[in-house]
């Protein structure tokens, strides 16, 4: 059973996604802050991480991704970033482009609210990718 870590400062968003994803057979861990997210990532070694962009700070999600990549065994864990932020928030990033994703060290940037089927589709896509690599 695949383990998914959701890091988001919006409890309601987490609750909704957790309820849905658990029904789809995933094991869900959640965290509300970057700090908590890193602890959970270290402790549970998730197969995939879904992270918010703007949490305590407008770029918390980036900080989180960068730090996750430095954790042992998590250098290649797929990270899906979901955000309600408009394209420009004090800095410019072109989330859709490959260089942007490379710079942010995330595999995919999704815009909130992410349709549930789309979310499951993305999760499955990255899970199968990682099993192939393994």
């Amino acid at each position: 059973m695949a383990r998914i870590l959701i890091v988001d400062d919006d409890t309601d968003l987490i609750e909704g996604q957790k309820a849905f994803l658990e029904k789809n057979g995933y094991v869900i861990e959640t965290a509300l802050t970057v700090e908590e997210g890193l602890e959970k990532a270290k402790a549970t070694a998730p197969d995939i991480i879904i992270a918010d962009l703007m949490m305590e700070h407008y770029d918390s999600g980036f900080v989180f991704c960068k730090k996750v990549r430095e954790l042992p065994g998590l250098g290649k864990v797929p990270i899906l970033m979901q955000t309600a932020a408009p394209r420009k928030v004090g800095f410019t990033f072109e989330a859709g482009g490959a260089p942007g994703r490379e710079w942010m060290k995330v595999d995919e940037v999704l815009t909130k609210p992410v349709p549930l089927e789309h979310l499951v589709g993305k999760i499955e896509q990255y899970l199968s990718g990682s099993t192939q690599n393994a």
Partner: protein
Amino acid sequence: MPETRPAASLQTPQENINVLVIDDEEGMREGMRRVLERRGFSVRTARDGETALRLLEEEPADVALVDLKMPGIDGFKVTEHITRRFAGRTVVVIVSALATVEAAVEVTQHGAFDFLVKPFTPDDLVQVANRAAQQWRLIRERERYLSELASERNMSHQMIASMHEGVVVLNIRREPVLMNPRAEHFLGTHFRDGITLPDLFPDLEIQAAIEAVVDSVGGRPETRVLQHAMGEGGASASTRTGAWEGMLSVSVSPLMLDGERGGAIVIITDVTESWKAEQDKNRFVSMVAHELKSPLSAIINYINVILTGMFDDNPAKVREMLERCKVRGEALLDLVRDLLYINSREVGKVERSIEDLDLKAAISSQLDFFKVQTEKRHIRASLDAPLAGYPVKADRGDLDRIFMNLISNGIKYNRERGSLAVRIADTGDAWEVTVSDTGIGMSEAELSRIFQEFYRVKSPKTSGIAGTGLGLATVKRVLGEYNGRITVHSKPDAGSAFSVVFPKG
């Protein structure tokens, strides 16, 4: 014989021309005087060079009729003196006998305007005198024109130098030819011969815009406007030291000289303030968009989950999710309400209506308004205000907004069965209202940001609490309009105390 100027005849055209006749023969002198005065000239006479020079010192003549052959200082010397001393002021006409025509010509070449050969008829004299007078008028006109021109140029120069905007003028070869002090200040460089366009504007985009305006072929070259950051982070930061810092608006207009392209005029304006305001506004709008989308995302997400039908067998779970949708939807409504309030304040749509109000009454009514919430969470609310009245001059809406926010926070971030104490104290010329709670409190780092727009303390403890992130920012802003202020003391897990100082009314 006293040398007096008779009143000029009014019927003649030469009434303003002041003539000095210099001749050693009295008959000739007086004859010329009569003829000229009859034509309206003002005439003085001198018997010799010495007298002539003295009279000229007293008052310069417009036209001098100089006899060439005189004892003492002769006509040559007098002419020489006049052309040196009164250049452009006195027109000299040489009067000489036929034998010295060559000499007269020579003198003419040395500054005399004309000559009159003896013997001459009164008509000859008048003709020469009229010509000289005409010449004198031309000279005066030209001088006046030149001096006007000079003062106009001087005026333009001073106007350009006094301008608040920077001005740079470039010729058709894109060479800077003029630069006012303000432009030197903005660009951090002084004008010097041979200075080039890139010396002034290292920024390639500005160079290109200027070149486009100067070089434009056909049609009407248009004005271009660009923004250019200077100093910290600006394009020119590395090339200049001590340069001005900020945001410049650079407008490049074609310089037209007699209908032909003659170069460009660059006007440089300091737009730092409006640029910063625009940046702030953009950031605010981005934040608003994010803050509107977040609750909507949560709500839509819940609804989508419910709509999958996967929780149809668990009505309690569905209800829980719907409750949260309601909470988030209401918070969204609050946010829109706060935004509208801020906007109405910003654009001055809503006039404040200042009334004599009582702080105690305003706070009491807010505490009553929140009674349901305090009771639901078993929070003990109290108001400690021993005086009969606490008069202030304020807009009722503003006062309500201030205490509504503080009391609402005191409830939301409190613990179950906590207390919410409001106290009004007299500090002399102001009232100090302290709203203390026994809730989750804040860390130093959190405290430093709570008055920023859209900042919300985010932790597991606050995660379920709805808020707009605008409440305290609005309170601070509104208080500022009344010369009031707000301070806060807080301890994590012990509680927070907000103190509002409001001037007495």
